């Protein structure tokens, strides 16, 4: 048995082990205990009927005395689930050999286990490796792998945390998003599927339905999957027939269903005339991640290239951001200089071109030395790369908005991603996905695309069919007035020039 990459995973916390865990953390009460007991019953699976969710992650063993009781309690749930075609993944939180727990898992018919500790990974049961995202081991990642320590997507209403500003200096609403990490994972673990593990924030009331839909969209739109995780309030309210809770559940399932019915979009590649090169590891991880995050927030479309690998062909690129302080290898340097000579722009923290080239006159708004090489330029930051925000701003300006692929007007808390799929050497399908990170619908948002296509197939959650959306010429592209975007919409272009 192998891990099915098409699993739609959901956390299913229930049973004695979860109750014990909650007791220890002091986060339980009578209502929660009732909920955790209720969700271990087979009847709870009723909620999954008619939804795309087909894989439940259950607590299996963490070395507590309750492990055995947990596995016993889960048996009826597992049997009922199997009849419904649901797969189960057991979570192992063991520091030592998991032999007994794995044997029990095999006997109970678990399809896989998910575990953080490499030493606990079984050889006779598929394993989904899980790691904190700042300790990603890309090469060792399993076919389906999972990252923790992600953020709950949405508008960050706090602007300060102690002395640290959480908003950009221009006052652009700061949004929390895992998008950059999903894009990074696609490049550094190509061909593998990332499950993002994050839980809803604790709240005194039920979360807004849009919050769950956004958690789905922020993952799927960038090529990963969210391990669906309901908050305690929602899980308590659902079995009681609470209509508001049912509305939240419906919205969430609708969002997942939408993306599952457009699974082919997951194969689309990020568009971009800018490539960002780094190893994204060790000392370079923080700067790399932040720059990806901030460029994405500016709607700059980019491709990611891992530094350690030999550089791919650079056709179609106009600029390269060489993020690391390490200089390129001889081969990489030759390739980059050839790129510059042909008219490309390389942005770097240090100059490694020919020593006989002197910098050209500076633009006072940019703290960069510009070296003209052939038809192109190498832009070198006067003080290296210090502040990721400034690196992102400067990169956008050095590349120039003239090369933007997309722009949003009245963007507020919206963002977008442009991706594409070639269907012939010169034509392809292009997809621009727009996400709203606010709980309020985004009104009067206009999307500009650098494409002459005058109409697009317009998709929204809940709509089985796309509708035609007419654009208006806005040279050198087209502008589309978007209907109010509650969480997500997508514009699909056929026959576009990629």
């Amino acid at each position, binding site marked *: 048995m192998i891990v099915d990459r098409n699993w739609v995973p959901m956390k299913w916390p229930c049973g004695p082990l979860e109750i014990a865990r909650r007791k220890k953390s002091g986060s339980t009460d009578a209502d929660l205990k009732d909920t955790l007991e209720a969700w271990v019953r087979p009847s709870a699976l009723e909620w999954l009927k008619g939804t795309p969710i087909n894989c439940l992650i259950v607590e299996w063993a963490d070395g507590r005395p309750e492990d055995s009781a947990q596995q016993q309690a889960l048996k009826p749930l597992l049997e009922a689930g199997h009849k419904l075609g649901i797969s189960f993944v057991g979570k192992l939180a063991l520091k030592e050999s998991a032999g007994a727990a794995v044997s029990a898992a095999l006997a109970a018919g678990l399809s896989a286990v998910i575990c953080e500790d490499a030493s606990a990974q079984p050889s006779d049961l598929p394993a989904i490796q899980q790691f904190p995202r700042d300790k990603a081991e890309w090469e060792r990642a399993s076919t389906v792998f999972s990252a923790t320590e992600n953020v709950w997507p949405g508008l960050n209403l706090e602007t300060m945390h102690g002395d640290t500003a959480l908003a950009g*200096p*221009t*006052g652009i609403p700061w949004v929390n998003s895992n998008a950059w990490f999903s894009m990074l994972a696609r490049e550094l673990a190509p061909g593998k599927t990332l499950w993002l593990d994050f839980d809803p924030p604790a709240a005194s009331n039920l979360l807004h339905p849009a919050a769950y839909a956004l958690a789905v969209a922020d993952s799927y739109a960038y090529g990963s999957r969210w391990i669906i995780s309901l908050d305690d309030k929602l899980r308590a309210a659902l079995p009681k027939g609470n209509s508001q809770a049912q509305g939240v559940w419906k919205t969430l399932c609708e969002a997942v269903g939408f993306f599952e019915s457009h699974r082919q979009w997951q194969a689309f590649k990020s568009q971009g005339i800018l490539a960002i090169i780094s190893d994204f590891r060790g000392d370079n991880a923080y700067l790399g991640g932040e720059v990806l995050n901030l460029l994405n927030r500016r709607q700059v479309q980019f491709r990611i290239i891992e530094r350690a690998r030999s550089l791919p062909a650079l056709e179609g690129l106009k600029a390269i951001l060489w993020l690391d302080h390490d200089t390129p290898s001889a081969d990489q340097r030759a390739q980059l200089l050839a790129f510059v000579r042909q008219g490309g722009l390389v942005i770097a923290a240090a100059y490694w071109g020919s020593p006989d080239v002197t910098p050209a006159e500076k*633009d*006072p*708004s940019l703290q960069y030395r510009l070296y003209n090489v052939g038809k192109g330029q190498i832009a070198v930051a006067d003080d290296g790369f210090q502040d990721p925000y400034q690196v992102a*701003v400067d990169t956008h*300006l050095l590349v*120039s*908005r*003239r090369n*933007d692929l997309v*722009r*949003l*007007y*009245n*963007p507020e808390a919206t963002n977008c991603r442009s991706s594409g799929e070639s269907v012939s050497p010169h034509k392809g399908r292009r997809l621009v996905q727009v996400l709203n990170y606010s709980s309020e619908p985004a009104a*009067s948002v*206009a999307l*500009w695309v650098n494409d002459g296509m005058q109409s697009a197939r317009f998709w929204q959650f809940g709509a089985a069919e796309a509708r035609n959306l007419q654009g208006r010429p*806005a*040279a050198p*592209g087209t*502008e589309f*007035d978007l209907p109010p975007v509650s969480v997500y919409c997508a514009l699909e272009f056929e026959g576009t020039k990629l």
Partner: protein
Amino acid sequence: MMTTTCSRRKFLGAMGAAAGAWLARPMMSMARAVPAGRVAVGVCHEYDADVTGTLARMFDQLGGLEGLVRGKTVAVKLNLTGDATDRLGYFPAEITHWVHPQVIGATVQLLGQAGAARIRLLESPMSTAEPLEEFMLQANWEPRDFSSAAPQVEFENTNYLGYGRKYSRLWVPDGGLMFKGYDLNHSYEDCDVFVSLAKLKEHVTAGVTLSMKNCFGITPCTIYGDGSPVDEPSLTPRGGRGPFHEGNRLPSKSAPPPVNNALASKDPGYRVPRVVADLVSVRPVHLAVIDGIHSMAGGEGPWCDNVRHVQPGLLVAGTNCVATDAVCTALMGFDPMADRGTAPFETCDSTLRLAEQLGVGTRDLSQIEVVGTPIAKARFNFRRA
């Protein structure tokens, strides 16, 4: 720091206007005669080829541009307020609150044809030191349209030091209403002719946004912005001009100080009109051009409450900014002689009156020669639109 030598009198003489009426030391008195100049009103319903023809006719009605600009460096302050992505509904910025590129292009072309040696397009984009061309591109404008409209067209973001080596210090004649002087980007001093190219619209704080209020944006936020350092200008601008509005803090200490009692009032309706009057006094406007083809009513930008798109179908130009703004105010359905408490100055002092008192020009329509379409025929009431 340098002191300005820019002479309003010299320009008015060249234009054949009432230069003799203007005295080197304006007095805070209504009794003194102030420049009036001529104001041309043109009807133009859309942003099409007619814009250039209409403006050309209007400039001819003013006496022609050639005497003003031939062989000169012309600085053109554009009116591009707010962020480049801000819109009123789905309307592009230029249809509501920004001067339209067609009007800019036509003006540049006509300035070039009149012999301008160099044309500098200037604006201080919101909270950024990015090149002005990049700011325009973000609005999906094409800067090349302007640079190809005339020889030697340049762009400069004046919200910071820019290409200058130091800020230009311009002192307000007679001491100023709010500050004794202002430190500005060099482009506002390094020019022979200064053009304010503005939008015909209301302003929540100042009543109207016309050629004078447009000059509020000539001040660099590195010194006058919310995020400017206490002592010296910052390298890049941060935030808007809150200190001018609310008086909650002083500009960087390197700049000229406020006049006595300038900090007494925290009322933006008191402070902003005075800053604007100061600015048009230190940096005289030689030519005011107002785009009122499409605009918005109710405020100066989409961030204001209860604003709406309007289409007055008007272009206005004049050689005196007070007179031009007075005619525009009348065209908008207001009385240019009105003051605080009366529309459009319900909550502010009249910049027109303050600038008039500084001797910049007259707001008295009876003293202004209006050419082209009469006000009565062209009037577009902003409050009823």
